């Protein structure tokens, strides 16, 4: 790995980037509240949705004491299998999280109702 490039002091980084990241944390909190408030069919299953499980795993990376957080947060959402899938027929987009996380999650995990519509070029 090359020597890291550093042009700013830590205080400058906080000064420049704190507010936008404060806002992001509150957006995540509000999103989780929104899911919690939702009622009707599927409300309970939503709590065990593979995307929320991955999100919580990624948030855990933010709170642990380790470095390299962006790359490790990416891994929390990533497909960690190694073999090609048999067919991509009817599949274009990505969900943003790997359904396979259900195989490693504790308790019940819901993966059947995802609409993966992120399919830009």
């Amino acid at each position, binding site marked *: 790995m*090359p020597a890291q*490039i550093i042009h700013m002091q830590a205080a400058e980084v906080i000064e420049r980037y704190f507010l936008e990241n404060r806002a992001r944390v509150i957006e995540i909190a509000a999103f989780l509240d929104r899911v919690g408030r939702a009622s009707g069919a599927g409300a309970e299953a939503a709590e065990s949705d593979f995307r929320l499980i991955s999100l919580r795993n990624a948030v855990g990376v933010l709170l642990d004491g380790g470095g390299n957080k962006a790359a490790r947060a990416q*891994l929390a959402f990533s*497909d960690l299998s190694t073999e090609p*899938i048999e*067919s*991509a027929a009817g599949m274009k987009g*990505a969900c943003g999280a790997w359904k396979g996380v259900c195989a490693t999650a504790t308790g019940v995990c819901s993966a059947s109702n995802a609409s993966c519509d992120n399919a830009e*070029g």
Partner: protein
Amino acid sequence: MNFIDPHIHMVSRTTADYEAMALAGIRTITEPAFWAGYDRGSAAGFRDYFEHLTVFEPARAAKFGIRHYCWICLNPKEAEDLALARDVLAIVPEFLDRTTVLGVGEIGLNKNSRNELAVLEMHLQIAADRNELVLVHTPHLEDKLKGTRLIMDAVKNFRIDPSRVIIDHGEEHTVGEILDRGFWAGLTLYPVSKCSPARAVDILETNGTDRIWLNSAADWGVSDPLATVKAANEMRMRGYPEETIRKVFHDNPAAFLGQSPKFAG
């Protein structure tokens, strides 16, 4: 400073975008062949698209003093239909011979399926046979890490020099491996699904500025044809010297693209 945006899909953008890009200092662009948002029904549809890329767009760009180059292929989102892929691959060499076509791209994987991998290998065979530059699309989001590794293994199997291959859409969890294996790495400045300018500059800070380019990949989605200029400004705000900014947004892409004798800056 003259910018190069080495990955942008101008067929999806307006002429006003060309004007804005020229005013912002973007003087050279390269446009990989990609997915239109729907599956084309025949090889004839691709022939029309390749004509558009090699005739209409260079002329439209030139009106604003922008040099337009392109890359030709069948993109991975339409690679599940092997019969269609074979028909399209049959016309690809004809277009690779055109004067503004720099190589094969953007090839790669989308959902990491066996057919996608087979079509990727068909393209790599053409690139190896013709000694073409290769521009690689890596999958989105959760599929990126696995797809990037499958793609790099496939390129290695064809004994293509990795210094002639750009693995694009790299992010924090893939760029290190891409560079370690001798490839060029592309960082894409794209809202929500790829890098923000701040994250892209973070990746430069942790991986260095050698063998890396930044691009907008602006297309028909919510995207920004001025993203490269905004990322350069992010570097400037952090205190980078102008020569480093020039290296990232001009000299690096010029060095990679200059491996093609057709590229004139």
